[in-house]
């Protein structure tokens, strides 16, 4: 199998897995959803450590991933080179952002927002609330798969650490920091988070930073940096308008 075929096959496997998992859990309420996704993630990260699968997964040692030939016109060494890899990651991030932004503006996005506000009312109004949530779940998992595939190409190495809960909490903290109220939020959050992780990682305080960031953002700026700025802008224009017409 060539490297490109391998990437496509793994992408499809993730999509199928996401569809099956989503079909089972997309119907549940937020708390149950949280616990079930947590359980599903732990299941995967522990099953790669199984002794019987050691020949395929490398157990706790992980696997060195190398390939011959070209992927997207680049050799294995090019992906390890930051200058060559950067445009690929940046393009992928932009495409993912555009896809999400398009979905957000579509009919599907409108239904998803309404379901978030009040699932029961949407169901009583005759909307199918299950299919949109399933589609959204599969879509975001496919985007996550792209990000994971790029990670493997870049690092040339994969280990159970890549499957650990901390990867999810890092993404969660990044999303909280930027704010989940707009498509730009996670992007801004991702930038702030990567920068902060570098800064705190130098003092071996990454975990502490994660904890403090979660608490501080939820309590003080629940809508994140982007949401907070939008709110502040709206408030100041309102007060300006109010002053003109007392």
């Amino acid at each position, binding site marked *: 199998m060539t490297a490109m075929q391998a990437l496509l096959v793994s992408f499809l496997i993730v999509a199928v897995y996401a569809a099956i998992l989503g079909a089972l859990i997309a119907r549940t309420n937020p708390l149950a959803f949280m616990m079930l996704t947590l359980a599903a993630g732990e299941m995967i990260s522990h099953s790669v450590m199984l002794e019987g699968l050691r020949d395929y997964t490398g157990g706790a040692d992980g696997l060195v991933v190398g390939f011959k030939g070209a992927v997207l016109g680049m050799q294995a060494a090019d992906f390890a080179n930051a200058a060559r890899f950067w445009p690929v990651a940046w393009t992928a991030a932009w495409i993912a952002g555009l896809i999400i932004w398009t979905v957000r503006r579509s009919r599907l996005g409108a239904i998803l927002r309404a379901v978030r506000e009040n699932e029961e009312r949407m169901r009583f109004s005759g909307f199918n609330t299950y299919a949109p949530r399933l589609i959204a779940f599969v879509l975001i998992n496919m985007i996550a798969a792209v990000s994971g595939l790029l990670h493997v190409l870049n690092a040339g190495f994969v280990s159970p650490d890549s499957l650990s809960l901390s990867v999810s909490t890092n993404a969660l903290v990044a999303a909280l920091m930027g704010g989940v109220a707009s498509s730009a939020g996670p992007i801004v959050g991702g930038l702030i988070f990567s920068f902060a992780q570098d800064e705190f990682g130098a003092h071996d305080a990454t975990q*502490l930073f994660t*904890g403090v960031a979660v*608490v501080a953002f*939820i309590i003080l700026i629940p809508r994140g940096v982007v949401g907070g700025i939008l709110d502040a802008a709206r408030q100041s224009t309102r007060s300006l308008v109010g002053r003109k017409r007392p």
Partner: protein
Amino acid sequence: MIALLIANSLALASLLIMLSSGLALIYGLRDVINFGHGALYMLGAYLGYTVALLGGFWLALFVVPILLACLGVAFERLVLRPLQSRSHIEVALVTLGLGIILGQILIFFYGGAARSVDAPRILSGSIEAFGLSYPA
């Protein structure tokens, strides 16, 4: 052999029962999913270690629950009440974050190495029952 396994499981299970009944209690009474519960368990263990070094196991058994009860009051007043109007998920994430912070603070003070507390004389050693000695 099986008797030993059962005795060990019962000992471990009683710890888990105390932990999980705490989770059930705070979910039932306060509608809070407490992801920081494990960190409080750990704090209890480390405070127990410190107090046991200073004044022995029985003093620790008396003092540490009181200390953690005070912490619980502070947690309720300072965190849970102000966040009462927030969604479940947000409160759960705050408890997760506080748990991480507490864990890191404990690692800062105690380091990553394991500590042990000597059991008092009445609880140490093994007992004979049904022709078996436990712990073996």
